[in-house]
């Protein structure tokens, strides 16, 4: 009986986790991939590990520490590259390693064993709490509202920032809000996929979507669908095979990408042959 309840809540948790992860990662990922911010996002992810370490050390929820570090590092890269004239990729590289270093130092200083450490590095559905799922759910709602209401504003600023400045004085405000929301999205998804793997959760679905369409809005929809298929499948496989969920999800998504790309190329070749025949 107890096993059933456990299994039931496990399934619900996994299902809700997959839905919210694919919504948040689909919306944030399309923005990140379109704007070529993948490296910045990788930097934010790893820098947030510093917050996880400090969280362990002072005994607060590590996700809160990670959120603070994530947002600060995103804004820090902007500050270092624009105000201090440090090359952006160098600034990212510095904050990336600096966050990891802080995380490692504080975890080392934390007395006793930190049992969840591996789950933060590589993700684990077992340690995902009800609060984590609720947080991801709220994040999904915020992102849907934000991108829904300000769709064109965000799209145009990210497509051509220089032109956007000719008609609006709120370009920087939107840039900072969007980047902060992406940092939060990344941090909340760390619980699912882990620091090391979360960036793929954002980047693979939009890249699969771009095999079908080049229209921003449709890329978002496809990314969410593809992300859900990958996450749910990975989740089921990891459950039955008893292997870590984060790695399984990413593995599933990459395989999905290879299959879809292969099928599309095959179809393309076949239709090309057909056109040759009909001509």
């Amino acid at each position, binding site marked *: 009986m107890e096993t059933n309840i456990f299994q039931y809540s496990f399934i619900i948790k996994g299902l809700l986790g997959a839905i919210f992860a694919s919504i948040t990662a689909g919306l944030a990922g399309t923005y990140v991939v*379109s*704007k*070529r911010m993948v490296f910045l996002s990788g930097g934010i992810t790893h820098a947030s590990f510093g917050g996880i370490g400090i969280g362990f050390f002072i005994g607060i929820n590590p996700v809160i520490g990670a959120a603070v570090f994530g947002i600060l590092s995103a804004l820090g890269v902007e500050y270092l590259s624009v105000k201090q004239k440090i090359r952006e990729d160098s600034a990212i590289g510095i904050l990336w390693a600096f966050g990891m270093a802080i995380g490692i130092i504080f975890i080392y200083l934390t007395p006793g064993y930190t049992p969840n450490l591996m789950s933060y590095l590589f993700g684990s559905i077992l340690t995902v709490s009800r609060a984590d799922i609720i947080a991801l759910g709220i994040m999904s709602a915020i992102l849907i509202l934000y991108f829904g*209401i*300000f*769709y*064109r*504003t965000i*799209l*145009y600023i*990210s*497509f*051509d*920032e*220089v*032109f*956007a*400045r*000719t*008609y*609006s004085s*709120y370009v920087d405000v*939107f840039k900072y809000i969007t980047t902060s929301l992406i940092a939060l999205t990344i941090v909340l998804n760390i619980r699912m996929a882990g620091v090391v793997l979360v960036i793929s959760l954002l980047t693979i679905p939009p890249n699969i979507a*771009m095999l079908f*369409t*080049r*229209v*921003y809005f449709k*890329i978002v929809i496809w990314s969410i669908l593809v992300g859900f298929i990958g996450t749910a499948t990975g989740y089921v496989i990891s459950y039955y095979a008893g292997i870590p969920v984060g790695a399984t999800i990413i593995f599933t998504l990459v395989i999905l990408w290879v299959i879809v790309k292969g099928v599309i190329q095959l179809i393309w070749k076949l239709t090309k042959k057909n056109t040759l025949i009909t001509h």
Partner: protein
Amino acid sequence: MAYLFEMYSLSASYGTNMVLQDVNFRVNENDFIGVIGPNGGGKTTLLRVILGLVKPVSGKMVFNSDLLNGNSIGYLPQISTGDVNYPVTVTDIILSGLMIRKGFISRMSPDDKKKADKVIEELGLSGMSKSILTELSGGQMQRVFLGRAIIGDPRLLLLDEPGNFVDMTFENDFYEKLRDLNKRMAILMVSHDVGTISAHIKSFACVNRSLHYHPSHEITNEDLLAYGCPIQLVTHGDVPHTVLKYHK
């Protein structure tokens, strides 16, 4: 003729670097002014002052509020901004020219979309409305950005080096198009391509820190010498042109 805006002894600088000094300049309805001058002479800054992106350090600029306010200036920047691989369609790029009139909650009405369709038709981009930039040629891309500049029916159109990314076959079409547009709006065009613009503009302004306005479209060697504008002349086929000596 009614004026659109007027500058009175206006100066602008980037930090300590004075880029425009003591500029007096007036643009009227239906003007077609070519802005020429050396690189770094302040041509683009002049446009940026008009757009309100650079604040003058002294002097003033007065808009004729009956005809012109921030909403009615169209702008075609030098191509360099905007990622050609960005997943945004031609229609959506052209619609972004209406953003100036919208708040940041920016829904496009069916009317707006009709306007975009009209511009697409007018600029010969039919059938490409759902394409993204990388699928277009240089000339087509330029017309998309021109579409973005004119969709709001501006009273003043600012063009920054539009010759930069035109392939030659489109260039004449493009200037013909500008001549049509000039019936509805004043045009201020920055260019180093004197040979081509002299055949299309009505007057020109030479910007090299200071601004000299020349109310005729014929640019003579003496004019250029007097204004101290080193010009590299680029010119070609069919368009009537004058070849000027390299000077300075």
